[in-house]
């Protein structure tokens, strides 16, 4: 994956297969046995996820920043390895912004508002992403 720059001139490091992606989810997006639900990875209908599912690349350098964004009341963090996203058939693209230089997008999920086939595929990708994801806990330091 090629580095990508944001408006400030910052160049995001490349995203590696071994990197972990972090995604915000609700406490209710986890089953009682701890597995992550599809809901955590299903694109929104309103088009907000049309460009891709919003994630952050785990990076010790930005841990405090991510902790402040992810560790909120009623919310949890899901994590999935980039390699698993590739294996499912999706891609990960850097999408750095000033508030999160390690922001990225999981891309390749069809726009579920286009039709029945796209909706089915979006459901399937959400299922596969959830199956490979787990709940993430930020390290103490």
């Amino acid at each position: 994956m090629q580095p990508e720059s944001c408006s400030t001139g910052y160049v995001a490091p490349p995203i590696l297969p071994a990197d972990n992606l972090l995604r915000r989810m609700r406490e209710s997006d986890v089953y009682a046995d701890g597995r992550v639900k599809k809901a955590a990875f299903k694109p929104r209908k309103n088009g907000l996820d049309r460009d891709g599912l919003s994630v952050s690349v785990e990076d010790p350098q930005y841990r405090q920043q991510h902790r402040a964004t992810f560790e909120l009341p009623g919310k949890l963090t899901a994590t999935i390895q980039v390699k698993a996203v590739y294996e499912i058939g999706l891609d990960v693209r850097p999408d750095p912004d000033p508030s999160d230089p390690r922001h990225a997008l999981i891309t390749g999920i069809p726009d579920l508002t286009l039709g029945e086939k796209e909706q089915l595929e979006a459901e399937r990708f959400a299922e596969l992403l959830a199956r490979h994801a787990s709940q993430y806990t930020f390290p103490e330091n």
Partner: protein
Amino acid sequence: MSRAVLDDVPTNEPLPSYLGTLTGKETNSIKEKIVLFRVKGPLPEDSISPDSSEALAQFSRITAALTDLLSLPETDELGLVRPARTSIESAQLTLFPLVQAGFVIPTPLDIGTDHDGAIRIVWENGPRSLELVVPYESDASAYFYHSEGDRYDLQRDLSMDATRKLLNWVRGPADPAR
């Protein structure tokens, strides 16, 4: 539900709360409610149970879980949280004909909402997964999503027979021919 079972329902028995929100109409008895929701035509023979109490009890539990969703906040930073009341009614109306037939709905793994406020009732049995999805918008149709291994599909047919088949599928033993 067979005629014999229907006739056994006491006319003056108080209505359980799970039937209270189904129609918005006042009725006096379980029997009237059952007649209101009676499906047209004969019921499949294998769905008729001599005792529907377990079917009703299971439906009551599902309805209670659905109703609990109304106490959720309307939205959060990730989207809609609380489902629409019409979505809850739609979910109930999808499942209630089975209850009338004495069919005991399998215990769901989970009843919740996604980030669009759609209700998702999930059943799982080993590799089999079945999900009834009822969108927030009243003009959007509900559907089932089901998967097993590499096979997956979406089904819009919510008729009693189609729903019963899917629930029997998720409850049943693995069928390699499917």
